[in-house]
C-alpha cells in the first residue's frame, strides 16, 4: 500500500443476509446440494439490481448494480470516492476530520462505514402474490450471515470502481462462508461463519478470513497453519488469531481502556537516534481503575496488567487481564506467597511479575538486573534488541516505584538514550490529552531513574506459536 499525499480510505461494508434452507434429511447426501443452492441464491441477491449501499451517518444511497445510481446528484460514477467524506456527519463533539489531522501525529487511513440494504420496490414483474405450501417434514434452517467486507483504496479512486469492488467482495465472502459452513456442519447443526479482517505483511496485505463461531482459537490451529503457509507468514508468531483482527480507526474499544497512548507523542529530538518501540497493541492500566483503590501500592500490579493486555491483544492468550486478587492468588498458587497475601496491599516486584506471567499466561520472561539506576543509560543495546525481537512492554521496578518501559530512542554512535515510559501511578480518568500532556506516558531521560537504587527489569518473551 503506497501512502501518498492522498490519505487512503478503507470502505467497510457490513450487512446481515439471512441464510435459509429446508432440509428433508440433514444427514443425507442431498443436503449439501440444497445448502449450496441457497448460497447461490444469496450470491444472486447481492448481484441483483435491488441491492442498495448506504454510507453510515450520511444521506447517501447507492444502487451499485444498476449502472451506478445514487440519490445524491453530485455523486456519479466517475466521482472520486473521497468526495463521500464531506457528506458524512462525524460523531465527535464538534471536531471535524480536518482539524484532527493537525492535532496529533496520527497516521492511518480513514474508515468509511457502509451498510448493505435491499430495495423491495421497483420489482421486475407485477405478478400478484401466491401462497406456496409444502407439507413434508423438514428441518428449517435459518442463520443470519454477518457480512463484513473491506476495500482499501486511495481517495481518488472512482466511486464506480469502489462499488464494483465491494459487490465482488460480497460475492467472494459468500463463497468463503459457504465453504466454512459446509466444512463445520454436523447434520443439522450449522455454525455461523464470522469474518475477521487482518492487516498482514506483504504479499498478503489486507485479508479477510472466515472462522466458525463458537470454535475457539485453540481448535483452529490446523486452519491457521494452512493460512500461514498460504500467506507466507512466519510460523513463530500469531497473525491470524481472532485477537489479531484489524482494529478500525473509528471503532471505540468497548472496555474503555486507552490503547497505545504513546503513538500520539512526538519522538525525542536526539541526533542519530533510532526508535525501538513496543510492537502491536496494549492497554494502559493505572491506579484507581476498575474501582480498585491501589494508590500507593499497586503500581507493579498495573504494569503487569498492561503486559497481560499485550499478550491478550496479540492473540497469545484468550484469558482476560487479571485483577489484583487474581494476581495475588497466582502467587499463592505457585508457593511464592502465603495465603494471607490475597487481599493485602503488599507490593510486588519483577520476580513476582515473572512468576505470574508464567503461571497465568504461560509466558516466560528474562530478568535484567541493574545495580544502580545510573547504569540504565548503558543498557541501550539490550533494550533495543528486546524491542526489536520480542517487542513486548517491559516492567521495571526499583527504588520504591514500578514503571513500564514501552521503548527506547537510542543512538548506537553517541550512546544517547531516552526511555518511553508508561506510568502506572496516574490516578485520573482515561483522558488522552492529560496523559500525554502531563507525561504520564512520555519520553524520559536517564535522569528519570533513581541513580543510586538498584533496578530489576522483567522482559517478557513471546511464545513461539501461531
Amino acid at each position, binding site marked *: 500500500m503506497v501512502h501518498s499525499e492522498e490519505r487512503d480510505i478503507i470502505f467497510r461494508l457490513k*450487512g*446481515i*443476509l*439471512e*441464510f*435459509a*434452507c*429446508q432440509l*428433508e434429511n440433514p444427514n443425507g447426501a442431498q443436503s449439501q446440494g*440444497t445448502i449450496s*443452492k*441457497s448460497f*447461490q*441464491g444469496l450470491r*444472486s441477491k447481492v448481484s441483483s439490481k435491488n441491492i*442498495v449501499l*448506504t454510507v453510515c451517518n450520511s*444521506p447517501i*444511497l447507492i444502487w451499485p448494480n444498476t449502472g451506478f445510481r445514487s*440519490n445524491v446528484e453530485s455523486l456519479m460514477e466517475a466521482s472520486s470516492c473521497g468526495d463521500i467524506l464531506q457528506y458524512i456527519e462525524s460523531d465527535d463533539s464538534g471536531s471535524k476530520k480536518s482539524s484532527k489531522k493537525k492535532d496529533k501525529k496520527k497516521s492511518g487511513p480513514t474508515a468509511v462505514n457502509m*451498510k*448493505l*440494504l*435491499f*430495495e*423491495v*420496490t*421497483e*420489482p421486475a*414483474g*407485477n*405478478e*400478484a*402474490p*401466491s*401462497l*406456496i*405450501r*409444502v*407439507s*413434508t*417434514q*423438514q*428441518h*428449517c*434452517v*435459518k*442463520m*443470519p450471515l454477518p457480512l463484513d467486507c473491506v476495500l482499501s483504496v486511495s481517495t481518488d479512486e472512482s466511486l464506480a470502481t469502489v462499488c464494483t469492488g465491494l459487490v465482488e467482495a460480497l460475492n467472494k465472502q459468500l463463497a468463503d462462508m459457504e465453504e466454512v459452513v459446509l466444512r463445520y456442519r454436523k447434520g*443439522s*447443526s*450449522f*455454525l*455461523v461463519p464470522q469474518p475477521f479482517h487482518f492487516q498482514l505483511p506483504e504479499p498478503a496485505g489486507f485479508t479477510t478470513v472466515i472462522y466458525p*463461531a*463458537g470454535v475457539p482459537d485453540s481448535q483452529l490451529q490446523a486452519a491457521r497453519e494452512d493460512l500461514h503457509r498460504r500467506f507466507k507468514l512466519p510460523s513463530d508468531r500469531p497473525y491470524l488469531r481472532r485477537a489479531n483482527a484489524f482494529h478500525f480507526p473509528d471503532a471505540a474499544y468497548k472496555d474503555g481502556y486507552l490503547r497505545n497512548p504513546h503513538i500520539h507523542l512526538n519522538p525525542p529530538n536526539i541526533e542519530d537516534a533510532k526508535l525501538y518501540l513496543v510492537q502491536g497493541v496494549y492497554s494502559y492500566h493505572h491506579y484507581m481503575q476498575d474501582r480498585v483503590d491501589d494508590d500507593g501500592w499497586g503500581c507493579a500490579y498495573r504494569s503487569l496488567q498492561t503486559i497481560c493486555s499485550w499478550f491478550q491483544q496479540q492473540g497469545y492468550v484468550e484469558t482476560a487481564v487479571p485483577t489484583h486478587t487474581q494476581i495475588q492468588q497466582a502467587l499463592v498458587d505457585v508457593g511464592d506467597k502465603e495465603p494471607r497475601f490475597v487481599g493485602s496491599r503488599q507490593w510486588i516486584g519483577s520476580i513476582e511479575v515473572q512468576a505470574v506471567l508464567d503461571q497465568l499466561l504461560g509466558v516466560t520472561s528474562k530478568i535484567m538486573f541493574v545495580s544502580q539506576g545510573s547504569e540504565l543509560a548503558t543498557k541501550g543495546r539490550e533494550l533495543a534488541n528486546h524491542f526489536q525481537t520480542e517487542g513486548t512492554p517491559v516492567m521495571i521496578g526499583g527504588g520504591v516505584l514500578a514503571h513500564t518501559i514501552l521503548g527506547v530512542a537510542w543512538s548506537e554512535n553517541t550512546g544517547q538514550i531516552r526511555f518511553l515510559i508508561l506510568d502506572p501511578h496516574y490516578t485520573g480518568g482515561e483522558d488522552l490529552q492529560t496523559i500525554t500532556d502531563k507525561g504520564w506516558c512520555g519520553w524520559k531521560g536517564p535522569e528519570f531513574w533513581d541513580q543510586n537504587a538498584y533496578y530489576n527489569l522483567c522482559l517478557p518473551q513471546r511464545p513461539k506459536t501461531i
Partner: protein
Amino acid sequence: MGRSYFVDEAVEEYLGGLQAAPGSCVTGLLAGQSSPQRDFVVLAVQTPHRESEGQPKASKGVSPLDDIDVEWVTEHAKQVSRMLPGGLCILGLFLVTPPELSKDAQNALKRLIFAMDKYITKGRLWELSEEDVTDRVTLHICSKTKKLVCKSFDVKDPKSSAKPADWKYQTGVSSSWPMLTCSVEVDLQIPVTGSSSDNTDKCMKDGLRRWAKQIEAACCLINGRQALDDSEFISGQKKNPKTTNRQTLPARIIVSDEQSELDERSSALVQVCSGSMKVRGVVHCRAYIHNNKPKARHAAQAIKRDIINTVCSRVEMFLEDLLINEGSQKGLCSGQQALPRRVFAPMPISGLSVCDYMFPDESTADVAERLKEMLDCETPEEGIDTSLESNQLFSAVSGSEITNSRDDDSNKHVISEIQDGTPKIQKAPQYYAGVAVAAAIALLATATSLLYFS
C-alpha cells in the same frame, strides 16, 4: 379541546339522501384521515341491509336501537377498512334515529364505536405510535329535524366519555391530496411447526409480523428523498381546490435484514417443521396524505402501513375461506395457490380510489357488485383497474421440494394461467342474503381449490 372534523360536501349529500323506514334507525360508517390537529371525512356508507330470516323485526318493548346488529355493523366496518388504501381509515360511525330515540342514541353509538374499533384492529400487524389519533367520531342525525350531534371518543381508553367535536362541511376536502404509490416484492419463507390449523395460523402470523417489523423499520424514499423526519412533506403542489390533478408520488422502500434477536447466536436456528409456507409475489400499494402540513415520516408511515395491510388482508381472506373449506384438514395439502389480487376503483366524487380483492375466478362484475354492497356506490366495470397486479403464473412442483430460486428456468413450467375471461362461476343464491361476506368468498374459493388440486 374538541376535535374538528372537516367533511366533504359529498358526505353531506349522501347523509341527506338517506332513507330510514319510519321508527327505525340507520347505521353507517364514516371514513377519512386523521391528523394531529384535525380530521378529514371523505366517505359515508350506510350499513348494508341484512335480510333477516323472516321473523318480525321488533317485538313490542324492544327498541330499534337495541335491535342494531352490532356484529353486522362491525363486520361491515372490517370489510370496508380492507377496501381503504393507506392513509385512510374508518374514522367513526353515524346513526340516524327518529326523534323519540335521540336521547338513547349516544349510548348506542358509544357501544358501537368501541366494538367496531376492537374488531377492526384485531389481527393488525403494526402498532399504533404515540402520535396516532385514537379519537373516533360519532354522528347522530335526527331523522325529522336533521339536526347533527357530533362527538368523539378516545377508543384507547375504555372509560372515556364523549367529547364535543366540530362537524364542518367543505368542498373538495381531498381533491388535492397527493397519492403515494409503489409496487413491493414480497418473498417470505415461513416454517410451519405442528399440524393443526391453529398452528398454521400462528406460524403465518408470526412470519408476517416479523416481515411487518422489517417494513416498518425500512428506509422510505418519496420522490427520491428520504422521508424520515419531521420536515414538512413537500408535495410540490400548492393547494388549489379548482384543479383536479392529483399528484402521484412514487415511494421506494429499502429494507435491511437486521434481526437483532438472532444476532448473538453462534449457530443456526433449526426447527423441525411439518412443512413451510411461502408468500411470493408483488403487491401494489397506495396511500393518500392530507395536505394540511403533513410531516414526511407520516407519509412514509401511511404507505408502509398500506403495504403491511394489503399482504395481511389477503392472507387473512385466503385463510378464512380455507378454514371453511378444508376445516381441520388444512395444512396437509401442498402446492401453489393464488392469493386474491388487488384492484382499484374510483370513489364517487372525491376521486380517491378504493380497492378490492379479486379471487382468480372472479371478474370485475363481482368486484362491482361488492363495491355496490359494501360502499353503496355504483362503479362502472370499466372503471375498475385490474392492471396493477397481474395474474399469477404457476411453476411445476417437483416432488416435495420447491426450489428457492424463481429464476431457475429449468423448473418453471407454466402449466396453467388463469385468464381474465374465465367464465364466471355461478354464484350460489345465498350470496347476498344474510351471510357474512367472508363465507361468500369461501364458496368461490371452493371452486378455485378444486381447479388447482385436480
